[in-house]
């Protein structure tokens, strides 16, 4: 019987979308799954636990077209601690933009890590519009995909999945403009202020 180590590598792990995606995963995953946040200081502790698991699931956001430094640094530590029993590495990545394919390069980076260090890349789920989708009626699409994704890991029939809001790009831009305008409003900042062209002083 396998066991999944869920590693949330969002730089804002405690309050992240990745955490919500991980929770949905745990809900549907038919084998044991244990959840951890990757922090700056717990790399060694996490690496020591890895051999107890059959699978690792990295959950993280796309940052500047790539993997966030939080994850990069963890992978660099893991590289220095070769494991005798290597779990299969699966990934749930989410990005702000609507196109799930914008995540492709980050996945390639993980795949290069796997190749260089003798890990197998398992299933991948690429989520577009991941900043907001869980707060929309399209949340069920994410639930459906995570359910299939988790079953692919349990059955060891690893696959690539993707999902996003089923909106035209024009509609998505409209919806995201409202999302961010409301975000600013909660901080007492107007849309015009948010649009400022000024950078520092």
């Amino acid at each position, binding site marked *: 019987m396998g066991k999944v180590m869920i590693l949330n590598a969002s730089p804002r792990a405690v309050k992240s979308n990745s955490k919500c995606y991980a929770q949905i995963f745990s809900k549907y995953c038919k084998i044991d799954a244990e959840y951890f946040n990757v922090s700056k200081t717990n790399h060694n502790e996490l690496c020591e636990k890895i051999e107890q698991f059959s699978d690792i699931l990295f959950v993280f956001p796309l940052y*500047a077209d790539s993997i966030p430094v939080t994850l990069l640094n963890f992978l660099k530590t893991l590289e220095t601690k070769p494991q005798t029993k290597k779990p299969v590495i699966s990934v749930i990545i989410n990005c702000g933009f609507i196109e799930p394919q914008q995540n492709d390069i980050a996945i390639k980076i993980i795949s290069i890590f796997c190749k260089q260090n003798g890990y197998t890349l398992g299933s991948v789920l690429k989520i577009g519009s991941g900043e907001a989708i869980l707060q929309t009626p399209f949340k069920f699409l994410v639930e459906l995909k995570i359910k299939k994704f988790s079953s692919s890991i349990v059955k060891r029939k690893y696959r690539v999945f993707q999902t996003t809001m089923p909106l035209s790009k024009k509609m998505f*831009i409209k919806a995201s403009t409202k999302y961010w305008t409301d975000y600013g409003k909660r901080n007492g900042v107007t849309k015009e202020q948010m649009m400022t062209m000024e950078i520092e002083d």
Partner: protein
Amino acid sequence: MKLILSDKYLDITLNNDDIKIIDLSSLKIHNCTGCFGCWTKTPGKCVIRDDATKVYPYIAKSDRVIYVSRIKYGGYDTVMKTMLERAIPIQTAFIRLHKGETHHIQRDVALKKAIIIAYGNISDEEKDVFKSLIKRNSYNMNFESYKIIFANESEIEEVVKKEVNKWEK
């Protein structure tokens, strides 16, 4: 304005006030915490008031940039990547259609001719991934054009000088 942004010290002296050299390894730059304060609380300014706030205004202003970075797993290594993540205050939260995809609206950011000098022990597969990464970056970082140079660590200064000479012509 022209900018040379490097993840290591470069032994280069320039007699040109229009070119700024920044050695990221000498600065104190924390990781982005993804708080979106730079978009929704203090637009255009990062809430972490460390050295990064002195760097991203130069990234914004420069119409020619040279980025020098070690490569890891086909992407930028930690020092450069940390700075690029901290540079999102130069964009707004709002999204537009750009080259057929959704991307953020930039603030006052000059259109750039970029040169990326990538060094380290880089496999062919990593080179390919890095090339596709820079292509994506070009959409998000306002590159009008770019060139990637893969170099040995020992030749970087030489390569940078050669490219700067071309700027000065």
